[in-house]
């Protein structure tokens, strides 16, 4: 806030000299100052509002602490009255501020709506405690998430949307070990959350939504790895995750205009991240040895996903409309998909895991190289950063795999340290050189 005030003061000092130099007309000086003053005043009021909100939160915390200390002395009926009236009070207070004309008061209204949603969750928790419900079942968290979702939809509140996404993820992470299986129901709630995100174009929340999906998928895969409940399906799940990520990546080609470009870019980046993450798992020979091959009877699932990928690719790859990708790139794209598909189908056949591991490593290096080329051509720094990150991770992982048993321990750590220092310097230098070159050159087609 002080930066805005400093800017206003600086403006007050500079404007007369600008008028004297003839850069602006004298009549504009007052209009500019009046406009800047309004913004500064608004920001000052915002500061007051935010501090007031913090005060409300502290006051609320004090009231909650007071009731918590005397909770067992209060009758059930009084507890229910306190819980329900706090819920009503926060939403009605939110309504009062939401119907005001000033944006900073509307923001306070949105925060009070979030408070109401938080109180709803607390109410669920306390009522289950008062009436001795089974606390092991996380169904209450699901209901809380859906309550937040409803508020986000009806009042177009991004804070409640964020709460809904986080709660849905927590619900699933608790539920999965209880049912000893992948918690597929999460995907339904995830899809439900995606609808308002895309409709309201909440791009920041789209990041949160996609991160929650990656966390869910990674948790389930790692949980399978640790628990060894269904080892024969492990490779199959990774293959499917990889192919689904690739499918999303295909759908973000410029031809598919079902969403805005900046939203598509977000999907594309996270699809690339998820793809690389799953491929990274497959580069570990020990993993392939442990889980052997995926069961024969479920190879049609892998095949269907591969066919979906090729279908989307055929529909999308129209070289007349495709921008920024050379024929070499397109050829490489198709080639990588072919190689990857073959390798994933080979998961269902008992081949030498070491050979498979080498092939996956080579495929990953090729894909990383292609992503760097893609990022450079389309002026997309995210691909370059992602590729360098995974390249570094790949080298580190292979270093550990190869030298952990071959080298003396101290020599291993010394060499590892040197590798990290030199490697990080080289990678960072290369990455900066590439991104700088990319930024200074014009994209071949700015519409891409």
């Amino acid at each position, binding site marked *: 806030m002080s930066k805005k005030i400093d800017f206003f003061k600086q403006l007050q000092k500079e404007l007369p000299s600008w008028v004297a130099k003839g850069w602006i007309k004298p009549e504009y000086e007052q209009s500019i100052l009046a406009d800047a003053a309004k913004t500064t005043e608004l920001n000052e009021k915002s500061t007051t509002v935010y501090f007031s909100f913090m005060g409300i939160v502290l006051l609320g915390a004090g009231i909650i602490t007071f009731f918590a200390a005397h909770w067992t002395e209060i009758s059930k009926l009084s507890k229910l009255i306190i819980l329900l009236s706090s*819920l009503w009070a926060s939403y009605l207070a939110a309504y009062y501020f939401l119907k005001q004309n000033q944006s900073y008061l509307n923001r306070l209204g949105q925060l009070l709506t979030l408070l109401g949603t938080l109180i709803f969750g607390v109410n669920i928790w*306390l009522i289950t405690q*008062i009436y001795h419900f089974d606390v092991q079942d996380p169904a209450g968290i699901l209901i809380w998430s859906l309550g937040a979702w409803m508020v986000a939809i009806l009042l177009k509140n991004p804070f409640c949307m964020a709460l809904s996404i986080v709660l849905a993820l927590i619900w699933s992470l608790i539920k999965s070990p209880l049912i000893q299986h992948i918690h597929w129901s999460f995907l339904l709630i995830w899809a439900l959350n995606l609808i308002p995100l895309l409709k309201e174009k909440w791009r920041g929340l789209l990041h949160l939504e996609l991160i929650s999906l990656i966390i869910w998928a990674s948790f389930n895969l790692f949980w399978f790895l640790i628990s060894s409940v269904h080892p024969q399906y492990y490779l199959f799940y990774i293959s499917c995750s990889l192919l689904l990520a690739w499918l999303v990546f295909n759908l973000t080609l410029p031809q598919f205009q079902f969403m805005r470009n900046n939203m598509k870019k977000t999907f594309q980046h996270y699809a690339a991240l998820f793809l690389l993450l799953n491929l990274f798992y497959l580069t570990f020979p020990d993993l392939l040895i442990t889980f052997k091959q995926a069961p024969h009877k479920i190879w049609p699932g892998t095949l269907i996903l591969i066919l979906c990928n090729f279908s989307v690719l055929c529909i999308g790859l129209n070289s007349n409309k495709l921008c920024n990708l050379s024929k070499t790139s397109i050829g490489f794209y198709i080639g990588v998909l072919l190689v990857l598909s073959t390798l994933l189908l080979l998961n269902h056949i008992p081949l030498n895991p070491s050979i498979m591991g080498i092939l996956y490593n080579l495929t990953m290096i090729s894909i990383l190289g292609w992503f760097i080329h893609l990022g450079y051509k389309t002026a997309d720094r995210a691909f370059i950063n992602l590729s360098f990150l995974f390249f570094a991770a790949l080298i580190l992982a292979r270093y550990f795999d190869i030298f952990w048993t071959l080298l003396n321990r101290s020599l291993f750590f010394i060499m590892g340290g040197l590798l990290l220092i030199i490697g990080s310097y080289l990678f960072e230098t290369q990455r900066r050189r590439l991104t700088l070159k990319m930024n200074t050159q014009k994209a071949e087609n700015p519409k891409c």
Partner: protein
Amino acid sequence: MLKRILLILLLQTLFLVALIGFRQWTLNTGTPIILETEPIDPRSLFSGDYVRLRYKISTVLINPAEKKFTRGQKVYVSIKPENNQWAATGIYIKKPKVPSDQIVIKGYIQAILPDNRVQVAYGIENYFVPENEGKKLEQPTLNEKVSVKVSVDRLGNAAISGIFINQKQIYQETLF
């Protein structure tokens, strides 16, 4: 805007009231049974103690020839009184029809145990008591027996309606 806020308030309040109402319906209309316990007490993160309860019917014998049960699966256990205690007579995937001297209680498989047994949770394994009073139920003396009065409704849902020590009622569940 006001209509939307009122809709949100109405739905959320209705849900909370329904939660209480459903529990009260089980307590008021359910068949009362007395179960003896084997308590273990952890502390709740919130104020108050909560007592973790286990019952004789928590462990159920299964027929190895029948369908395999999995952890987290919903099951129905038929119970009948035997020697002043309720004992499990069978475990089913779907709610069975039972003779009038038996009742069916709904639960979830918590663990698959050796010797053809499963551990089942019925939603009556926790009870919140005022702070520092959990020990009475957690560590009864040798001649003290803790038993729990449970209501089981016609859908198989169970709810604790009272706690007894040596048949003397210590806690009673009411609406308010």
